[in-house]
């Protein structure tokens, strides 16, 4: 049970019902995190827009499994089990290699990125995401210079920044309102990257 009142799909009307219809998955399933917004539907619109654009948009160039890995990593650092479970399921789906996904998860759970099945550049992206999550004011230009010399271009650095920053928002939506996975279908996402207006979860 969430800590604040929420409105179910069946009881929703007006703007909330229209938004639920846009984001719903199979059998009118609405992810609990979206239901957290039900007393202020316009905030769901803001949330879906940023989520879709930073994680499921055709103009991102880093692979989706890597963006999901950053999301799981940030969520783990923030102790947001809801986002870890949902986005690990998504990561697994996009990576399509359960053995490697398991090794990634083990490294994240153990807070040991060195052990992750990633190349050195990808690992450095996770170190940046960690600093951004845990002590953002301590970051300096040196970190960005290191990311660049490891092989990331500036647009890719921006993509990592956006995903890590978005999860710092989403984790707080979950942790601050008592959102749980009860009744959710894990790992559904607004996966159609070719259409930014398609918010349906599949």
């Amino acid at each position, binding site marked *: 049970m969430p*800590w604040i009142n929420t409105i179910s799909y069946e009881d929703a009307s007006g703007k909330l019902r229209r938004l639920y219809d846009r984001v719903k998955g199979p059998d009118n399933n609405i992810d609990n995190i979206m239901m957290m917004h039900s007393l202020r539907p316009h905030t769901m619109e803001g949330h879906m827009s*940023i989520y879709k654009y930073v994680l499921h948009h055709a103009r991102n160039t880093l692979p989706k499994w890597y963006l999901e890995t950053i999301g799981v990593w940030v969520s783990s650092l*923030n102790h947001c089990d809801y986002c870890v479970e949902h986005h690990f399921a998504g990561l697994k789906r996009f990576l399509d290699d359960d053995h490697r996904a398991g090794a990634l998860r083990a490294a994240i759970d153990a807070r040991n990125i060195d052990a992750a099945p990633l190349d050195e550049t990808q690992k450095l992206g996770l170190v940046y995401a960690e600093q951004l999550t845990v002590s*953002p004011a301590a970051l300096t230009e040196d970190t*960005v210079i290191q990311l660049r010399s490891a092989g990331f271009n500036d647009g890719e650095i*921006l993509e990592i920044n956006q995903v890590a920053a978005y999860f710092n928002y989403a984790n707080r939506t979950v942790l601050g309102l*008592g959102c749980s996975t009860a009744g959710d279908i894990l790992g559904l996402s607004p996966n159609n990257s070719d259409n930014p207006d398609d918010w349906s979860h599949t």
Partner: protein
Amino acid sequence: MTWIESISRETATGYLERLYRAYQRPNRTIANIYRAHSLRPHTLEGHTTLYRAVLGHADNQLPLWYLEAVGLYVSVLNQCTYCTDHHTHTGGLAYPGEPEAWSAMEDALLNDRTDDVFKGKELALLGYARNLTLDPASLTAASIDALREAGASDGEILEVNQVAGYFAYANRVVLGLGVTLDGEVRAEQTEILF
């Protein structure tokens, strides 16, 4: 201005130019935080959509100046000078009372001494924003019960959650990309956008 490359308003074309036009200030300047998105313009669209929903939307019930105060407080706690500077200013623009009263609130927020001037529901919700910023996993159902006892409705708790959550994002855009105040122009007005 930023540690990564960015594109000026004058040299922007296509999709980015259209977004810059939509999000420029009345004096046609682009906030440095927006310009930081220019290599991936779609992320600017996501950012502004969330920003306008949590802070500048007419369906929020807490007054804009209070939501600005929450954003300012979170930015202070995250040591985000850029956002602190902007929202000290826009909070003052949004505050309908005496300027001295906003100054006292501003001092309390900047020095992390909210109980100097805030009381009741306003003080309790600022405490919630503080915990959500510094140690989000420490919050419990009892934290929310305490807000209700102080007079906050569930919808108001959600509003503060969203503003604090948005600033957790925005502060990291600034601090993680090295967005500075160089060449920045302050807003001349604050407004409910929708």
